[in-house]
């Protein structure tokens, strides 16, 4: 299923979303709740000093890491392999999947457990493993719910099931998993816990993403609240961690800063309940640790951003703070973006990874209010990158021809004072036929789109320049 969600065109997806009242209400509630929590744990927490300094620290670390990405990836892989791990560099999703399939086949694996990971969603790993007879069990509660629903997709990078309410969840689990309880979250959660306990123990492979790789030791750092990352990395004989190639830090000291930024920005916690750091084991093996540990490092189009203005998009730590403040996401939810990466970062990232043909409209799904840029813990100038995408979209000729013509006319108009003068003078006369009670309800041409939902102001009758001239004259007379 990979990165793309749904087959419908963008505006149809938007219409579907706008019709879904529950979904929209839960997005708004989630945003309002998370915003308060996040602010309390960031700007609002005096104990950590100035949050802006933390953001700058995060940006500094991420920038340096990306600028020297080849070096740190080499270090990471070297250290991982030195301790007995296997590293596979995959340029594409297909390469990553093929490698993982091969590992599964070699182990004759039938069952795998997985902790939540967006990059495995992105490459469509579950389907790839199913193809070789290995079933992947999602263990993050939200992902577990989506998986039960067969074909449901994430609508939020941190809480993938945000669009589902508890009675929908109850019905799904009833139908697909034999659940017979109420729609109380406690009861639903307890059911998932009991269902998954044995699944954890019996899995042949444990799959995780990677919140941060630590180059200096070859460690994989995982951030969760449920404890599923611990379960997934403890009991299966084989562990496979899949990492977007940009998701690493040089040292443990840097990990500290990033985990703090992530925990506080994503969920308003000082630290998530679990920060689980796994490094291939040297010496005699633990009973509760993997015997075989693979790290799959995926490009998947990320390198297209390197060396461009979009490089800083790779600084992203997937905290969803930008999603949680986005007024567009608030109303259309995640699925309307048509990508597993939604909200502002989704609108920046999806066209980079998946191209303009597929995702070129997403950068326009923003009013450029810059709430995202303000929220981002690593200071990615998201709204500027959205504008940059629009520029490329236009330069590469994707934009609508009539819009192009209108903008050319705008350019001429806005740089030719004499034309503008004629326009301002002519506006009241020109608009006259459309004016009713001081405003325009049904405008001509491009104004039609405006007046579909709002009144358009009637041009003022007076000419401001003339007024100003007269006014100044009055001034000098007074002197």
């Amino acid at each position: 299923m990979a990165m793309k969600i749904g087959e419908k065109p963008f505006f149809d997806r938007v219409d579907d979303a706008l019709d879904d009242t529950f979904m929209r209400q839960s997005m708004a509630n989630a945003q309002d709740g998370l915003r308060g929590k996040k602010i309390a744990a960031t700007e609002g927490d005096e104990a950590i000093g100035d949050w802006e300094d933390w953001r700058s620290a995060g940006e500094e670390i991420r920038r340096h890491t990306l600028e020297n990405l080849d070096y740190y990836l080499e270090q990471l892989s070297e250290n991982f392999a030195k301790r007995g791990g296997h590293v596979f560099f995959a340029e594409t999703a297909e390469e990553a999947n093929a490698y993982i399939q091969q590992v599964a086949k070699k182990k004759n694996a039938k069952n795998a457990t997985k902790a939540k990971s967006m990059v495995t969603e992105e490459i469509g790993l579950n389907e790839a493993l199913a193809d070789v007879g290995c079933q992947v069990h999602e263990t993050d509660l939200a992902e577990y719910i989506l998986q039960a629903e067969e074909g449901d997709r994430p609508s939020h990078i941190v809480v993938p099931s945000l669009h589902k309410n508890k009675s929908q969840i109850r019905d799904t689990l009833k139908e697909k998993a034999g659940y017979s309880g109420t729609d109380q979250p406690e009861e639903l959660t307890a059911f998932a816990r009991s269902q998954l306990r044995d699944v954890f123990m019996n899995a042949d492979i444990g799959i995780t993403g990677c919140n941060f790789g630590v180059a200096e030791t070859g460690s994989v750092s995982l951030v969760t609240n449920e404890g599923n990352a611990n379960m997934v990395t403890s009991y299966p004989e084989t562990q496979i961690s899949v990492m977007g190639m940009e998701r690493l830090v040089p040292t443990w000291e840097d990990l500290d800063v990033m985990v703090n930024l992530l925990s506080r920005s994503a969920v308003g916690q000082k630290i998530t309940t679990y920060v689980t750091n796994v490094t291939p084991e040297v010496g005699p093996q633990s009973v509760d640790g993997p015997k075989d540990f693979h790290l799959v490092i995926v490009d998947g189009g990320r390198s297209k951003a390197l060396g461009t203005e979009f490089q800083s998009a790779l600084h992203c730590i997937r905290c969803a703070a930008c999603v949680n403040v986005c007024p567009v996401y608030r109303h259309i939810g995640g699925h309307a973006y048509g990508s597993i990466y939604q909200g502002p970062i989704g609108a920046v990232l999806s066209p980079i990874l998946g191209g303009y043909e597929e995702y070129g409209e997403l950068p326009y799904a923003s009013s450029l209010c810059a709430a995202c840029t303000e929220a981002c813990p690593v200071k990615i100038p998201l709204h500027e990158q959205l504008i940059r995408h629009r520029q490329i979209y236009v330069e590469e000729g994707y934009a609508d021809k009539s819009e192009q013509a209108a903008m050319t006319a705008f350019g001429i108009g806005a740089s030719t004072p004499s034309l503008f003068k004629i326009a301002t003078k002519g506006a009241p006369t020109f608009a006259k036929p459309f004016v009713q009670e001081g405003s325009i309800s049904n405008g001509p041409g491009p104004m039609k789109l405006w007046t579909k939902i709002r009144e358009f102001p009637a041009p003022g009758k007076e000419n401001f320049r003339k007024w100003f001239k007269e006014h100044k004259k009055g001034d000098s007379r007074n002197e």
Partner: protein
Amino acid sequence: MKISLFVTCLGELFYQEAAKDMVEVLERLGCEIDFPRGQICCGQPAYNSGYRKDAQKAAKQMISAFESSEYIVTPSGSCAGMFKEYPGLFQDDATWHEKAQKVADKTYEFTQFIVNVLGVEDLGAVYHAKATYHTSCHMMRLLKETESPFKLLNNVEGLELLPLENSYDCCGFGGTFAVKMVPISEQMVDEKVRHVEETGADVLITADGGCLMNIKGRIDRKGKPIAVKHIAQILNSRS
């Protein structure tokens, strides 16, 4: 103090009353105002839609118009914010970049200029109404101006300023976004109007022509009895 008025295209075409009020307020504060005739539009519609070249044309026009000004003052946080983007438009052109930087550095939004440059917070205004204030995104986040409008409004006699729920959310204007993404923009402005209504205010005040046009357009379309005013209109009021 000598200042140049950048009235903005929306101000010139639609909100002349607000523009006049702004002129009067500034004059009362002892400013000597001129109106550079070459000014047109800051180019934001083109810039935000991805038409960088066309935006550059508009920018050059504006830079030339305001080059020799001492201070540039405008009744729109968003348009002031666009002036601040100018240097970025000319990264490959040293001459224009330098000019753009100079223009950007001396540009102020109206309330920002009064409070931060002139150091005045009480304009002796009188306006009897229950009102709420819409903080425009660009003023708040690009210009980082969050306090000046409130400082000035808090000193308006007779004005009861009510807090606006979710004040930080965008009203759905976003320039061409309002016509490109009509269904989404509609939901955004509806939520904004709902929150405004919930305050019980009779007047919504804002310091941005774009937001004003959008929110007022929706309020009027829905026939709600709420007036929408530019902040200059309040600050110049004496009754």
